[in-house]
Structure formats: C-alpha cells, structure tokens
C-alpha cells in the first residue's frame, strides 16, 4: 500500500509550503523585473535576477482548463470523479490545483475561483468565488 502523494519542500520552495501551513498563498516576485514567478525558483526565468521576494497572492484566479478524473492513481480512487484544474492567478501565474465545493458538471473554463487551503496533506485547493 503506497501512501498518498505529499510535497517535500526544499530550500527554495519551503516559504510556499510554510505559507500553505499558515493558510496563506505566497508566491515569488522578482526584485529585478517585478514579475511574479511560480513555481518557486532560485533565479528569475524572465530576467536572470537571483533576488526574488515572497509576497502574498490575492488568492483570486480563473480556471484556464480542467479535467474530470475518473481513472485515478491508486491513492485517489475512492474520490472519483474529481476535478483537477489549471488556475491562472490574478498575479499572472498558472497553478495546478483541485477544485472543491463544486460539482464536476458545474465547472467551466473561465470560471472565477479563490484559494481554499485545506486537506491532509494541506494544499492550496480552489473553490468558486
């Protein structure tokens, strides 16, 4: 029996997961070019700056795309069907997530959503806003 997947923070990503543990969605912003960066990186992919700061995201986004999962990896089989989505945050970065508090048939591309940190492991899910 395998165990459900959980993130293993590293030196660069730990502030993100510490934020999630505190109930806050934090992402990076480059001090060189000012753009937001996700996933967390040691170097800005836009301008090569190595100085990135952590900022609190608004938590608001829209669904860019989604899939309703019916054939799940082993540890998720009792949860099907569920919705995995790509969400574009207001800050301009894209994040994979699962949508909660909405039936799969009710999900649409472009739907406004907001972060809803929860679960075990604790993760940044999203729900309709």
């Amino acid at each position: 029996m395998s165990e459900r997947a959980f993130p293993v923070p590293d030196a660069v990503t730990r502030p993100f997961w510490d934020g999630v543990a505190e109930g806050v969605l934090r992402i990076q912003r480059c001090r060189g070019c000012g753009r937001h960066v996700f996933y967390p990186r040691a170097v800005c992919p836009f301008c090569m700056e190595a100085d990135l700061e952590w900022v609190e995201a608004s938590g608001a986004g829209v669904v860019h795309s989604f899939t309703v999962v019916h054939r799940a990896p082993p540890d998720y089989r009792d949860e099907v069907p569920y919705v995995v989505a790509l969400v574009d945050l207001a800050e301009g970065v894209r994040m994979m997530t699962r949508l909660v508090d909405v039936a799969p048939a009710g999900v649409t591309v472009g739907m406004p959503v907001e972060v809803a940190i929860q679960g075990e492991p604790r993760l940044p899910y999203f729900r309709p806003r």
Partner: protein
Amino acid sequence: MAAIAGVAESDLGEVAPKTAMQLQAEAAREALAEAGLTFADVDALLSAGGDGYAPSMAIGEYLGITPRYTDSTNVGGSSFVVHAGHAYRAIQAGLCEVALITYGSTQRSAASRTLGRGGGVRGTYQFEGVWGLPAPVGPYALAATRHMHEYGTTAEQLAEVAVATRKWASLNPKAFMRDPITIQDVLASRWIAQPLHLLDCCLVTDGGGAVVIVSAERARDLPRPPVWILGHGESHTHLGISSMPDLTTTPAALSGARAFGMAGVTPADVDVVELYDSFTITVLLTLEALGFCGRGEAGAFVSGQRTAPGGDFPMNTNGGGLSYCHPGMYGIFTLIEATRQLRGESGPRQVEGARVAVANGTGGVLSSAATVVLGQ
C-alpha cells in the same frame, strides 16, 4: 546527406519472458541485416528509455559496439526522432558513418505502467504531483478541454482519429488491436480523464525497434532503396503541463517549421504522415502545429474519416500508438513506418506513390517535439 538504411521492429504486444535488452538486440540485428551491415560497422549509438541510466552505453555493451558518437538524449517519446536528427548532423560533420538507434520496453508484461505514485514528491513536480492527476493522460485531457473551449472541437472529432487509425491497424498483421470500432464505440467507452475516453488513449504494450542511418557514401550500395533525411527539427517548451506556454500549441510548431524549412518542402508536398498519437488530442494539436491545417481547424480537418485508408490524408498508416503498439515511447515507430511507406513495401496499407513523408514525435506531456522530413 544521410539516409535511413534499415528499420525493424522487435516482437510487439506481449513478449514475456523477453527482456527490453533482448527486444533491442533483436531489432538492431534485423535492421542492420536489412541494411547489409553488421554490429562491427556501427560507429554511432543512440538510445533512450531502455535499461539503466545510460541506454546507449547499455546497448553498446550488450551488442559489443564501441561507438565514436554516443547519444542517450531522453526527452520522452520523441527521443528517437531527435536521435535521427542528431545522427544526421553527426554524419554530416564526419563524426560517424553508421548510426544505430534502438528502443525496447516490456512495460505491458512487467505491468510497470502506473497512473501515478504516492509518497513524497520532490523537485519541480512537488506542485503537480500532489493532485491525483493521472499521468500522462491528465495533462493531455487539460489540453483537450482547452482546445474544445477555444475552437469548439468535439468529442466526435477526437473519435474520428481513433476510428481511422483502427482501420489502418486492421491492415497491419503486427497491430495489437485490429477489430473495427465506430465513433459511437469511442464515445461509449469509459471516461479516463474527461474529455478523453478509454479509446482516445494509446495502448500499453511491449515492443522495441531499431533504425540504421548511414552516410551518403554508405548509402550507395544498400540492399534496399535509401530513404533520405531531408530535414529535421527539435524543441521543447516545458516539463510539467502547468508550464506549457499555450495548451493548444505544441513544440512541433518549432520543430516542424525547422524541418520543413531545411527540407525545402511544405506540408502540401507531404504524401504520408506518421504522428505520435499518444492520445487523439495529440494528433489534432500536432496537425495544427505542423501546419497541415490552421489553428483550431484540426477537428474539422480529420472529420469524415479523412485520415483513414482511402482518405485524402493518409496518417498513422501502421495503426499508430492507438491500435498498433505503444511500449511507452512510441517515436521510433513513426520513423519505421515512414521508411517502409517510402520504400513502397507496406503491402495492403501502402500509400500509392508516396515520395515524401513526415515523422513527428511528441514527448512528455506535449513537452518535446521532433520532426523529420523523409524523401525517396
């Protein structure tokens, strides 16, 4: 100039108790024999995905070959099409004369294919690997949803690809699934990850293959007609699907433009097309990326069984990853079938008068692409 001089598949389907190295060795032996060459003639080895961390080293040891050019580039299922381009370049540069590309996998008999693994997720995957998205079908489903949203592409249009490809498979004795299917069968098959059904997904089989590429000098007196590499291109745009710049534009837009430009041909000049069909959506996105139709037009393009035997756009004439074989990294089979079509030896599935072919590999989750334009 460089040409494909020999191609071969290993046993396909379920090959237990054979091993992946055995499949590669048997395919290599057969492809070299077809080219009138032996292991002793090979001076370049290119491989991906086989046993061990350095596949070209493993096959070199197994076959007793000491190359002067080696390449274990792994960018997913497109790797072997990348290798064909690299072999061409290495031959052009005078680094080698006889390049052997190999692949083998026993993922079906080993039951090694999973939809995802539990436990701790590290590195850049820690943000994607925690959501229960089945791999690799989930990311392709995300692209399919987006294509449907942007362009009105329908499940029926995706199903057209699966149905047409199965018709080609019915003409190929080596194909794993040969019974005809209908669009209704595809739509009625169970959901895997919406909007993709079971029959939108490639097979899980064992299998392997080998391709021999030689210099123009070596190509002069081959037992079979040489198939020339006219152009090639490669690229990748991301690793995880969250980082794909545009969910409906694959890197085949980059690799294809380079390959066509180098070959001096346009999509309209191509007689037969072999595309990596990991999922039906992969085919639609690739047709658009390569310029066989406009952005968003692929659904309409494949409708009416246009890509089936007798249609005016023969595609995936071996039955593809959807119905012929899919051992996990299908790219090498696009080269093998394109070569056979240009030699005119494809029997009941031969595309009459085929003179120019395109082989296109896709790797990862629409992450990498490699295109090769081939000609007689």
